[in-house]
């Protein structure tokens, strides 16, 4: 039975502070990624002849690294139970992505080359993570 002291789904002050810290870390990285990605698409000339196209292609890794840093810092801020839920989701997402990668590879060997194989693997991994995280809550 829920008592009046059980504050429903309301977050505590600590939860809000941790969420704010995560957003402060995360969003500059995403914003930077969007800006760099736009610049690459506008001026990178990735299918052109310039040798600089390889540098352009690698540029988005820099702001993406900032996002990874934000996630690592978030994992170190949350408590053991939340970390367990998060890592369970990540583990399932990783397993699904690996299976998707192998499946796409075998299909390629069998003669069915999928045009957006990388995106299929990415989507499968993210979907696996999202579903596992929702089930674990």
């Amino acid at each position, binding site marked *: 039975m829920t*008592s009046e*002291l*059980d*504050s429903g789904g*309301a*977050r*505590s*002050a*600590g*939860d809000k502070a*941790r969420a704010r810290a995560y957003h402060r870390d995360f969003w500059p990285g995403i914003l930077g990624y969007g800006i760099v990605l736009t610049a690459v698409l506008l001026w990178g000339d990735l299918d052109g002849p310039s040798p600089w196209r390889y540098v352009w292609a690698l540029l988005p890794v820099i702001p993406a690294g900032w996002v990874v840093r934000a996630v690592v810092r978030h994992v170190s801020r*949350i*408590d*053991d*139970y*939340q970390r*367990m839920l998060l890592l369970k989701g990540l583990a399932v997402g990783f397993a699904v992505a690996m299976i998707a990668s192998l499946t796409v590879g075998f299909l390629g060997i069998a003669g069915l080359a999928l045009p957006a194989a990388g995106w299929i693997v990415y989507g499968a991994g993210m979907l696996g993570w999202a579903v596992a995280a929702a089930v674990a809550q």
Partner: protein
Amino acid sequence: MKNRLKELREDRGWTQGALADQLDVSRQTINALETGRYDPSLPLAFRIARLFAQPIEAIFQPESDSISP
């Protein structure tokens, strides 16, 4: 593992969020502890015991079928 966390918290008139802040964990974690979905780590169990000024075994009791002879 069974625990008296909810009873002890309600005796003091604290919300789950207030207890979470005192233990430096999330409200979700307090809810998981109270509903038996999560057994705390030893450091967290000690923090809970210290906060309520009771020994750990007065707050947490193993399920009877998990005690080995």
